[in-house]
């Protein structure tokens, strides 16, 4: 019951944060000097009627204090405007690429979680060769995901495999590899910390097997691992823009790149709103999970 109240409070708070962020996005988009219509047409002169029509469609024809409440209300009612180039609603475009990104996030997160657990077991229970693991971890986590993508691309061509554009597999492999390094680094630090705890000594003295002790350790180090994974999936949802556009995968990142390159102003703003909401939801989820998993954090 008290947990439910805490959940409701968190949800209300993040809703408030969403409203403020949307407001800020709108003010930002308006306050930056420059004129999207001029950028769109370049050197060509635009006649007054077309310009007025565009300004009205983009919602730029009235002063900011009139437009702002309209904009925020429209976001919540699902009317995110129309793309300049394609005759489609922004919310449909965003929804489609969001689902594509989710297809990328879920397997990648599952893989990274399982692989981190497995490597952790090999690292601490089976092998004594810690130097190898330390080197591998720092190697994997230091190299940015964009370089991983390039390496993977070169590898594909050396192995003479076809580079399929728009397929799920190449970005999935790249993101999982790059994510594994970072997540395992965090997990490993927690494991090292947990193994120092006195209760591990007690379990050893009680004669628990290595696997049972490892399970206890994992349960204890679950909160940081889960929050690292959740944070990372938020990042992927926000568009691993570079990786997705490297392999032409039609997710959020690719959508951002297309919208940016074609100067599609409404889609760009819709993207920003969607990503901001995702981030706020992910942060709230992390907080709630911490409350759920770690009784010490529960301050109702």
């Amino acid at each position, binding site marked *: 019951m008290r947990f439910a109240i805490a959940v409701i409070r968190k949800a209300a708070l993040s809703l408030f944060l969403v409203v403020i962020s949307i407001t*800020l996005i709108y003010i930002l988009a308006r306050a930056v*000097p420059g004129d999207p219509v001029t950028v769109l047409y370049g050197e060509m002169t635009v006649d007054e009627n077309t310009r007025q029509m565009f300004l009205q469609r983009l919602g730029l024809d009235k002063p900011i204090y009139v437009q702002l409440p309209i904009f925020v209300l429209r976001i919540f009612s699902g009317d995110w405007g129309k793309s300049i180039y394609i005759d489609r609603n922004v919310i449909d475009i965003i929804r489609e690429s969001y689902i594509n990104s989710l297809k990328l996030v879920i397997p990648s997160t599952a893989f990274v979680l399982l692989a981190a657990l497995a490597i952790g077991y090999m690292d601490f229970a089976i092998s004594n060769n810690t130097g190898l693991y330390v080197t591998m971890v720092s190697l994997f986590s230091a190299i940015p995901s*964009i*370089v991983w993508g*390039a390496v993977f691309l070169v590898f594909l061509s050396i192995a003479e495999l076809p580079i399929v554009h728009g397929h799920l597999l190449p970005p999935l492999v790249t993101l999982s590899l790059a994510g594994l390094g970072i997540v395992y680094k965090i997990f490993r630090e927690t494991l090292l910390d947990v193994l120092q705890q006195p209760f591990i000594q007690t379990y050893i003295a009680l004669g628990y097997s290595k696997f049972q002790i490892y399970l206890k350790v994992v349960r204890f180090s679950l909160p940081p691992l889960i929050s690292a994974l959740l944070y990372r999936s938020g990042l992927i949802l926000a568009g691993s823009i570079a990786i997705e556009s490297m392999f032409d995968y039609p997710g959020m990142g690719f959508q951002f790149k297309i919208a940016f390159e074609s100067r599609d102003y409404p889609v*760009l703003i819709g993207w920003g709103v969607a*990503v901001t909401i995702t981030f706020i939801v992910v942060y709230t989820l992390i907080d709630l999970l911490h409350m759920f998993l770690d009784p010490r954090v529960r301050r109702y």
Partner: protein
Amino acid sequence: MLFVFIVSSFVLVPNNVVNEIDLEKRLLPPNPHNVLGTDNLGRDLGLMIVAGTRNTLIIVFVSLALSIIIGLFLGVLAAISTLFSVIIDKIMILVNTIPIIFIIAIIAVKIGPGVLNIILALFLYFLPLFYRIIKTMALSLMAQPYIEAVKALGASYSYILVHYILKEVAPYILSLFVFNIPTSIALEMAVNFIGVGLDSSTPSLGTIIGWGVRYFTMAPHILIISTAVSIVLILALSVLVEKTSKVIRNL
């Protein structure tokens, strides 16, 4: 540690002889004239990569230094006054939630690409982080008994700040700077790869990798060489980080 600094200053030496466009020699593989081959505009890839690495490092250093200075200022201010701390905390939460790449994209759409965009992106990324760390450090220092003693002796806030807080915080700031170089290089590469930051006349590691991917089927050497250079650079910098963290731990 010194080695990397020498390398980076060596990289700073050659100036812009890079933009010699020669359309006759487009996308050549490595040959005696151009040791590493040429790019899509016939520029020498070796020179391009040297200049690109230099540009990357300059961008990274400038933006890290900027965010550390502003973060230090705001953090110490927040440690002194509760009112400031409440206001700045709220602003930092908002900066955290709005995606930085979106802010940069809006600026690029409305004004145009440029170096300042990337520096702003990195600055906004690191500012909340540095602010929080420095604020926590300054707060714990302010609670020390000897600060109380100095205050009782009649020292002004500015005196305490310069002579005690800054002195204590300085080594940690250096380590913050070094720790975040690899991350910021990764960020710089991502931003430039997408094309939100620099235009094609200024090379950097990210833009070169971007061209490499675009011309990969015709000229694979661009991507292979630039990727290899980035890996070597980042590994060297991680070694630097490890060494620095050892030095700090022994302090």
